């Protein structure tokens, strides 16, 4: 009847955390003790466990993911995603012969993926570009396929593929095969963010664009104060309304742990991208980072 998130079975490695603080020079590169432990929200868990635990979070929220996003961002996430799609402005131009190949990682629910294809179709009359929707969690992919079925578009369509893949490896995707790589509110859940960026670099064609929308450091003190109060109340609200305290607690803590704009920009440059930049949305609540593979 009630799906209890599986990560309630984790053990708190308190000592690993203190060691971790000494060795990790960069908040993003949280591997310690030779890559044995990593952060999961604010707990330190064995590397191999984190994927399973994150999977557990998303299994329990998959069916209510959109509602959860609406609650967490008070509906503003739709504006952010619209701006994300419009700013990228991707699509096969009318004077071109070659369709684009998109890949949307950690986008199981499909909102960005379908939004990108819809934008290409409306603005450039592009009905040929292909889309690979990747997610490590099959429940989220199921939600995406269900949505495709309900809107009767992109379901059983050769243009759109739904695949269960690990974003850090993407072993079923060839190198140098994608024009646009998008990841929206998913990269903070990667066990190893740098590996995810390196894989993005591998998978993109030369000239391909890496485009990422993720929560980031709030620049304005007042908005930051407001957000902190909201973040303190959110898990309780999730518990009362959605009967899920732990998932919201994890999400709020994972947002806190994600590196800030400049650090993430440095990580993208380290992966080999050029012309890396970012744009703050809503005073830095989230940021769009981009980079081009040369």
């Amino acid at each position, binding site marked *: *009847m009630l799906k*209890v998130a599986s990560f309630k079975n984790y053990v708190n490695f308190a000592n690993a955390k203190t060691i971790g603080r000494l060795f990790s*020079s960069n*908040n993003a590169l949280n591997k310690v003790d030779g890559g044995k432990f990593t952060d999961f929200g*604010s707990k330190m868990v064995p590397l191999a466990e984190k994927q399973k635990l994150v999977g557990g979070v998303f299994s329990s929220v998959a069916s209510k993911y959109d509602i959860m996003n609406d609650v967490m961002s008070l509906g503003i996430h739709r504006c952010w995603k619209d701006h994300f799609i419009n700013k990228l402005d991707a699509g096969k131009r009318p004077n071109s012969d070659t369709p684009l190949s998109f890949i949307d990682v950690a986008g199981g629910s499909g909102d960005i993926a379908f939004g990108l294809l819809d934008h290409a179709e409306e603005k450039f009359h592009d009905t040929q570009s292909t889309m690979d929707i990747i997610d490590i969690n099959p429940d989220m992919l199921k939600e995406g396929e269900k949505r495709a079925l309900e809107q009767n578009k992109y379901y059983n369509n050769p243009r759109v593929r739904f695949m269960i893949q690990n974003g850090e490896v993407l072993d079923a995707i060839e190198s140098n095969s994608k024009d646009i790589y998008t990841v929206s509110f998913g990269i903070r859940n990667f066990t190893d963010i740098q590996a995810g960026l390196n894989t993005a670099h591998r998978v993109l064609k030369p000239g391909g664009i890496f485009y990422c929308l993720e929560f980031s450091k709030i620049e304005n*003190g007042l908005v930051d104060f407001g957000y902190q109060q909201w973040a*303190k109340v959110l898990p*309780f609200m999730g518990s009362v309304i959605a*009967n899920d305290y732990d998932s919201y607690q994890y999400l709020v803590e994972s947002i*806190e742990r994600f590196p800030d704009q400049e650090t993430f920009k440095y990580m993208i440059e380290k992966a080999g991208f050029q012309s890396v930049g970012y744009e703050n949305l809503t005073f830095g609540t989230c940021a769009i980072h981009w980079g081009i593979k040369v």
Partner: protein
Amino acid sequence: MLLRLTFLSSKLDRCLHNRAQQRHIFIATALTIGSFLFGKDARLADMMDRGELHDKNVEYELKRQERIDARLKTLQSTRPMKPMYKGHVPLTAIEKMILFTVSGVRSFFHPENGINIVQLGESTALPFVLENLKQTMLSDETGRRILREKPNVTTDQLDMGKLSKLPKNTFGYRFFKWLEKEGVSPDTRAPVTYIDDPVHAYIFKRYRQCHDFYHSLNDLPIIIEGEITVKALEAANLGIPMAALGALLAPLRLKSVQRDRLYDIYLPWAVKTGLSCKPLINVYWEELLEKDIDKLKKELGITAPPDLREIRKERAQKRKQLKLRYENFDQ
């Protein structure tokens, strides 16, 4: 007030009698003091303090990590106490009131959603009620044993295969048959989340898990009338507020036939049985699976109610006959 003070206070301020002037001075003062706190100089000074202004110094990373850890700590210390058991979400007093209000409203409009009822049940299970129940358990030998051994009712603990092979007059066999007839399994009980004391939480969990035993012992179906009857039995026997709430308010939503049946037959039976029989929380159901059901009922002091499904079937048949008779007449 400010006007009068500035006007009357000093002889030198004789010129400040213009209200607009005073407002201007007030605003200017507020802005100046505000700029000391939030202005550009203050912001730059904070950034310098954090090491963000010039080339990032050696301490920058450590300080940043400290800040992030401080923020994480505030995020984690929102609960008034540490969790007492797995799945425990401690709530402050205000949060408990919010939970009660929200779940109460939601249960009123959507009683069919199990989560609402579960949350309302936990928010109304006040400490003195559960303490009372604990004392009932402690004053009985079997109750003490239950509290010590903390049995958990799940399908692996109650082997369904074994139950089906028991003799037909045993409680275990009847329980198995009832589960089959109603199409439910004993695993569907929600975990306890909001009750703070771990012993109280276990007692509440035990109460929830024994619900099906009460159903099968009295052969009451899982339709709403059967549920109301069992809730009334629990309310009378154990004193759980949610059970009483449910038994009082739920019949108001029923059809009048069902309501009359409840008020005439089942609720009186439930209240009478509940008040007169042994406290059911002290019954170690798992050990009594092989006991003869009639003997068990006698020991507990329970007499069976009329079979609800039978009564409903008979009434449905009569109505059908009536319908057929008059349909034929019309043709």
